[in-house]
């Protein structure tokens, strides 16, 4: 090493991150998908895919991740009320990108209570339904390292991303009519830091690194859980959305739904599946029109709701096969 800090790309949040300023190791040039932009030039390189692994069996439900998320993203969730549960706020909001969901589940095999605590938030799907549904050019992007990010200045607040998401994650702000969700702390990751939630997690239930490393780490955890009697312990990396860049270690991987309705087999809704097939030029024109219309609509009127007419139009735009992301040899950034 010559003494200068080399940005080696993804690091686990456990290791002490660099304190020196360093250049961002990925950016615009690393986009593999860009919403409503079918002619996106293929990226010149493939970054190492990253992932956040949430080990539900190590999680103590302390909400440090929620707190760190609020602090890092500088949001102000409302002080609500107690409605008889520990889940607070009661749902994801435009000010709360991650949420601990608590489920009391009696295991029918043992008659023992299990308190299942799952950190909910964006899964960063390899095949992102939100991005595919999004009609606003560049409002949702995907980097070759797997991060799916919202670019808020391009967002028209139409809410298609909410419909497109198989996990029901994005939330539209009532204040600025834009869509918000977990960014996997792309701003932190780009400069060698792990996501804020992983950094704050006291038990390392949340870890971050390359997807390959995370899968290896998960394998060790699953082995440990099996030794403790959880025969169906496993990794949640659902193939229906091409795998995800946020994964769970579950004690009961055979029934994800017991964890506060985590989808057993998530898939992008048929509406979006058809939408994604639109032909390049028709699609571009339609989306350009819609985007402009929506922006004007957003400026002069408040809600940017998707009308049923929009939905119908979208369904009419039937095409064939979507352009596939370029396949590039893996390169460690």
């Amino acid at each position, binding site marked *: 090493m010559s003494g200068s800090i080399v940005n080696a790309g993804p690091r686990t949040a456990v290791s002490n991150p660099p304190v020196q300023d360093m250049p961002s190791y990925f950016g615009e040039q690393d986009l593999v998908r860009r919403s409503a932009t079918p002619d996106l030039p293929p990226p010149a390189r493939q970054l190492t895919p990253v992932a956040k692994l949430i080990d539900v*069996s*190590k*999680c*103590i*439900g*302390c*909400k*440090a991740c*929620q*707190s760190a998320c*609020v*602090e890092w993203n500088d949001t*102000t*969730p*409302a*002080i*609500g*009320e*107690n*409605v*008889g*549960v*520990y889940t*607070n*706020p009661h749902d994801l909001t435009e000010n*709360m990108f991650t949420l601990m969901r608590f489920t*009391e589940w*009696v295991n029918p095999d043992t008659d*023992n*209570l*299990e*308190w*299942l*605590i799952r950190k909910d938030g964006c899964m960063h799907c390899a095949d992102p339904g939100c991005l595919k549904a999004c009609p606003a050019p560049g409002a949702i992007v995907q980097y070759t390292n797997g991060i799916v990010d919202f670019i808020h200045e391009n967002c028209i607040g139409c809410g298609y991303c909410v419909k497109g998401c198989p996990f029901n994650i994005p939330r539209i702000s009532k204040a600025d009519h834009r869509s918000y969700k977990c960014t996997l702390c792309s701003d932190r990751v780009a400069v060698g830091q792990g996501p804020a939630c992983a950094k704050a997690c*006291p*038990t*390392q*239930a949340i870890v971050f690194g390359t997807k390959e490393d995370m899968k290896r780490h998960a394998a060790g*955890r699953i082995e*440990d859980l099996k*030794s*403790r009697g959880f025969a169906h312990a496993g990794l949640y990396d659902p193939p229906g959305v091409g795998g995800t860049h946020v994964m769970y270690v579950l004690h009961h991987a055979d029934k994800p739904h017991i964890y506060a309705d985590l989808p057993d087999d998530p898939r992008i809704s048929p509406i979006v599946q058809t939408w994604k097939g639109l032909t390049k030029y028709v699609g571009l024109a339609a989306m350009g029109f819609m985007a402009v219309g929506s922006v004007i609509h957003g400026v002069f009127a408040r809600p940017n709701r998707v009308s049923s007419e929009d939905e119908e139009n979208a369904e009419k735009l039937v095409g064939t096969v979507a352009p596939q992301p370029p396949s590039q040899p893996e390169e460690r950034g």
Partner: protein
Amino acid sequence: MTNAWTDIKNTDLVVVMGGNAAEAHPCGFKWVTEAKAQRGARLIVVDPRYTRTASVADFYAPIRQGSDIAFLLGVIRYCIENDKVQWEYTKAFTNASYIVKEGFGYSDGLFTGYDEEKRDYDRSSWDYVIGEDGFAVTDPTLQHPRCVWNLLKQHVAPYTPEMVERICGTPKDKFLQVAQMISECSTPTRTMTSMYALGWTQHSHGAQNIRAMAMLQLILGNIGVRGGGMNALRGHSNIQGLTDLGLMSHLLPGYLNQPTEKEPDFETYMKPRQFRPLRPGQTSYWQNYRKFMVSFQKAMWGEHATAENDWCYHYLSKLDVPAYDILRMFELMNQGRVNGYICQGFNPLLAFPNRGKITSALSKLKFLITMDPLETETSRFWENHGEYNDVDTKGIQTEVFQLPTTCFAEEEGALVNSGRWLQWHWQGGSPPGEARHDTWIMAQIFLRMRELYRKEGGAFPDPILHLSWDYKDPHEPEPEELARELNGRALTDLRDPADPNRVLVAAGRQVVNFSQLRDDGSTMCGCWIYSGCFNEAGNNMARRDNHDPDNTGAYLNWTFAWPLNRRTLYNRASADLNGRPWDPSRKIIEWDGTRWTGYDVPDIAPTAKPQEVGPFIMNQEGVSRLFTRGLMRDGPFPAHMEPFESPVQNVFNRKMRGNPVARVFQSDVETFGDADEFPFAATSYRLTEHFHYWTKHNRVNSALQPEFFVEISEELAALRQVANGGWVRVWNKRGSIKAKAVVTKRIRPLHCDGKDVHVVGIPLHWGFTGSAKKGWGPNSLAAFVGDANIETPSSKAFLVNLEPTTAPGVQS
């Protein structure tokens, strides 16, 4: 903690009982997940509620709050019955073989010598037989019927699994599963750690809860070893420092005793504190008491403290009662016998039991000073907040001075963690507004008072006029100056007794550690156990070298641990009688033929031969105590005692209420309720989202857990027709509160002594100041009675009634 947080990673079995480490100590809990992930350690949780800790446990067993002694004596009985005892350790390192006096006995829930009138024991029979040579008589074969081991076997005999189920409500099969898992740790190569907190201390028999587990750990050979120990998780970042520095009315720094009226002069005070060894050749380290005491007095009064005036012993106040603990202070305040009160970093209006009594007491003061970074309920006790603080402001004449102080991040200094590490920290931000350091405020009060005494005299000005106060800036002593005083220094040249020409420490230099302290006035030391923290090598508390050779978890160059930077107390016991580690893979120290060497600072003289000197050097016996002689007020063995307010009677003595020797004030007896009127067993606790009454001032924490609630089982909700998320009223003779109901499967009714016991869980984070929604805390309802030995309030077990109601401010 006998061990350190970082040592928990070395364990095979974690037992969390009397605490909720994941919930209340989430950062420290990482070492449990580390032990589980790296060593395959198992985690057991025993608690009235299925807690956040239970959610990651390998096994959970329910227990009725306040019945832990019965459970633990049941486990001891199980281990003895099934020969799951680390025999070599038990025989060599405990007092199992010591012969107890004839006359000592136990029946009907009481030990010998009980005086119902005085609510106290005559403890004279609770002692060893002392031989003609002045030493305790022992029978290493354990055949003698009066040896501690045989008395212990007899004492635990009634605690069968059936009896445990009857008292604790723990189903027999679950109890047996826990007992079996624990008993496996009796081999020299398996260790268990006990992690506990206020779930054990906040009972009228709190100290005995801890004793019971300590005894279990001793017979399993788990004290002094890696991954073992009795690990008290402290509730605040510096509560360990508070007790170390003697911030209790009956203690001086370093666990020296405040003198009493029966000790009018120094020699009378010192006479019962000779600590002669009870067995030949034993260390009995408290024999150095006089050195520590004289050095403390020299730290207080410097040149004024001389041999001729007993080192200013007459300056020290003498207690006329066992202690002016906080319960006693508020009782006196409520009787109108206290004029002024300084609340420094303390919020008694929410922290102490029977809030009604606390409000009444504060209203009788002439003045109240609060020092706190945040606005506390105590500082606004006079302010009407509707139902949440329904006081008649006009009727309260107390003058309140609210002094804003800095918080930990705005000041420099050391905090002592649960593992006895004195960790120096640096100022991270500037204090807002008029906030000042506590040291500045205290210095201002002192300097002004001293000036008044100088001008006006007074009954006894000397202790104040002569107090050592030689700081660079008398108005604000620096943290480093204070730390150097705690370490101590030589006042004259300290010479080698063997070679008077050799100066060991020159006058004015810091002593290396407390081994250099003397009782002839040539040294001063503010707190002997901290000595070594800031010597001529510098500020050892500020060290940040995290190297850990062979990953033992010791981290000897990270900060400073008292005493002497030792990380695991009693670590001599990690090796067998010949000085070889019980478990070579978890060596701490070993005897190399001439001295003790290893990863930690040996807890024994470095050249003390292993077969001659016992590992428990602070005890006169040199061994640990399964039988504590007369050192505890409520018995030499723990015995089952019910809380003062209990849903069931004591099965061993139905007449006995609570701890038979706990102090109870007459005015509080009237506020006790019984199970007919108040059928439900309430308990109090923290939630991870909040830290005490601080974080409700923070918007983020408040968003994560916004509103006061109580937790009840689905069965109790059905019984009282309470809806999840609906409002309930919870009350007893001391108070009435309203809360949202969280109806949960995590609490289930217990079946105890033939009846169903419903548990009501009451978290403690809400009040009427801050960002979170206004609410109450469990202290409105808890009983005003403390532990018999140390007066910790028994906030963990009391009775309540419960019914559905409407929101505060809304008429039903």
